[in-house]
């Protein structure tokens, strides 16, 4: 998607640390553009079973048939014929960093991933570089218990029946235009299966990196938590700064079986030339708990509303969302909770920040079906603007078709207050330090729900963004 010379270039984030890229020629790079031929080629490269190829082609038809969404952000500038849909740097998915090509390992070293793994902070690590997963490893004891954590392509080769049983059962290929696109050209992503009763005590982490210019990354993640199991999955993402735009359009499906507990944490830090259009959804059965922790700091435009469908009594869904938009960014984030069974509960907590002309929105849907009595839900969305020329909106929608429910809703939009600033400055804090403290306090309810390392990282990223905004 080369930006025409007449248009304003992508706003650089001077404070963005991960804007570098590797200048190594990719092993395979499909020509730009989207067609049946491209989809077939991807399927050929992956030597997939025929059912998957058919899935892809059908999804391509859905994609072509559907109009572009006219809500959220400005999508008209995306030129689907100016994107490389498949770029592969290496032909191996390794389980030892020593075997990963040096220049790719260097990238992940800069991101601190192998170090965190070595320190035992993670139960397993996956790394995707452009279209393919280049590294996957899981702690031996978990592997022995039957926990699967591997690239989705590899899972399709090694456990085709398991993948086939769940693939697109949570998000159908025709769910929305970008889910259809992903289903047509998907590549990479994580596949996780946790057997009944097994607890994965520390997080599994995957790291997504776009390296090539004008490319689309379409990873597909599928997590199945069997009965009574527990798992926390964390994903991070970064990309180089290019003058033209990249597209990241992922699909994440999660099945939380009875009594399971799944937490999915995202720290999204794409460079400001990435369109981030992602569909994430989980189904939660009897007494299962599903939590999305969704932190959005990067990208040019994000449209992402993690969803939980509460399918059986006792299921609990929770979404904790932080969006922090700086110059040239629009972050349209939020949550969707569907109460499809009685006595289900949910909590949505959203904190959006905007600064330096950035725009952030909360867009949420809370749906309670007729007959889902005894449901309880609490929605709280707060927005904080750091200056006059930034913008914050909330679009909370509630569709409640059942009378016997308990729904709470609270929304606030505010500016960093003069009185708060004055109070802190009267105690000797500089204006910048005082502003940071107020912002840290604002996001605190979500930060404190993160494991320490991620809390530190999230705070650090927000502070970096503020350094760019308030000097």
């Amino acid at each position, binding site marked *: 998607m080369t930006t025409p010379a007449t248009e304003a270039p992508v706003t650089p984030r001077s404070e963005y640390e991960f804007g570098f890229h590797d200048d190594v020629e990719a092993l395979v790079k499909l020509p730009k553009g989207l067609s049946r031929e491209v989809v077939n080629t991807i399927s050929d490269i992956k030597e997939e079973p025929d059912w998957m190829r058919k899935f892809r082609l059908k999804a391509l038809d859905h994609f072509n048939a559907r109009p572009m969404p006219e809500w959220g952000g400005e999508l008209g500038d995306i030129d689907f014929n100016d994107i490389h849909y498949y770029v592969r740097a290496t032909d191996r998915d390794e389980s030892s960093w020593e075997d990963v090509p040096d220049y790719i390992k260097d990238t992940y070293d800069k991101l601190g991933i192998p170090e965190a793994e070595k320190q035992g902070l993670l139960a397993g690590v996956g790394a995707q570089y452009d279209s393919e997963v280049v590294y996957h490893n899981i702690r031996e004891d978990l592997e022995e218990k039957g926990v699967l954590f591997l690239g989705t392509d590899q899972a399709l080769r090694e456990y085709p029946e398991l993948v086939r049983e769940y693939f697109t059962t949570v998000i159908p290929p025709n769910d929305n235009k970008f889910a259809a696109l992903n289903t047509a050209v998907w590549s990479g992503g994580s596949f996780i299966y946790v057997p009944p009763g097994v607890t994965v005590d520390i997080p599994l982490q995957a790291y997504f990196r776009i390296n090539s210019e004008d490319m689309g990354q379409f990873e597909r993640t599928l997590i199945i938590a069997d009965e009574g199991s527990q798992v926390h999955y964390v994903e991070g993402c970064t990309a180089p700064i290019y003058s033209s735009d990249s597209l990241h359009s992922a699909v994440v499906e999660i099945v939380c079986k009875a009594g399971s507990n799944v937490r999915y944490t995202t720290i999204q830090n794409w460079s400001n030339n990435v369109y981030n259009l992602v569909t994430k959804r989980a189904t939660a059965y009897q007494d299962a708990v599903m939590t999305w922790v969704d932190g959005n700091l990067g990208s040019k435009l994000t449209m992402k509303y993690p969803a939980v469908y509460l399918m059986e009594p006792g299921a609990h869904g929770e979404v904790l969302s932080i969006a922090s938009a700086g110059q040239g960014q629009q972050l349209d984030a939020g949550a969707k909770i569907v109460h499809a069974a009685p006595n289900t509960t949910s909590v949505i907590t959203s904190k959006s920040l905007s600064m330096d002309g950035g725009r952030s929105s909360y867009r949420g849907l809370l749906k309670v079906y007729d007959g889902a009595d005894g449901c309880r839900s609490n929605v709280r969305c707060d927005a904080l603007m750091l200056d006059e020329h930034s913008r914050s909106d909330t679009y909370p929608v509630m569709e409640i078709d059942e009378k016997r429910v308990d729904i709470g809703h609270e929304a606030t939009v505010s500016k960093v207050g*003069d009185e708060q600033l004055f*109070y*802190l*400055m*009267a*105690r000797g804090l*500089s204006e910048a330090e005082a502003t940071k*403290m*107020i912002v840290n*306090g604002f996001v605190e309810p979500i930060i404190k729900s993160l494991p320490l390392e991620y809390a530190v990282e999230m705070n650090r990223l927000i502070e970096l963004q503020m350094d760019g905004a308030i000097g």
Partner: protein
Amino acid sequence: MTSPLFEIDALQVAVEDKQIVNGLSLTLQPGEVHAIMGPNGSGKSTLANSLMGHPRYTITGGDIRLQGDSITEMAPDERARAGLFLAFQYPTDIPGVSMINFLRRAISARRGEEIPVREYRQLLNEVLGRLQMDEQFVRRYVNDGFSGGEKKRAEILQLGLLQPLVAVMDETDSGLDIDALRIVSEGINTFHSDDNAILLITHYQRILRYVQPDHVHVLIDGRIVESGDASLAERLERDGYEPFMERTKAEVLSS
């Protein structure tokens, strides 16, 4: 000759083009306690806030000096680091920011270097104990959900921790019951030394029973109209502000 500790020199302050403080002068020497007493609308809070540099108040004339150096053009944080302190009448709440974190930042800012954790703990426990405050108090968010009395105590806690040269107390006694008033007053007295000075701004005389002023000033229409010793406060308590207001009115009419 050394400069006085704190000088307010012919200060004029406006709020949204309305003149509130009209040429007020006052000098505080080290070790002194001054009380400024005035009725509602006399300019007490305007004076307190403008001394600290609140952006809503515009200084239209005069000068404020701390240890001989003008602080009139300084931002609030520079004034604070230089040693000026304001105990707020209505402290603002800052949700999500713990007292323990905020206080450490504030002490470090005042000192110009990070206070070591150990020293901080000791200092904090000492001052908390003096104010009969529970350790758990500092785990709470800044002023968030505090009762009126707790807010005032939190201000005195900060006074004790930050050790300013000059403390301006804006109606610290308002909204306190008699026990809280005694504890808060003791906190001020413990802080007070020969090296610092206190400016009590108050409507009522009652705090002056616990914190003895060396000088009392009567504020009417943004001016000091009478100054005296502690007995002036007693006179005010007995006769009220009415006689001073009548006199000011007469002066304005005759001028």
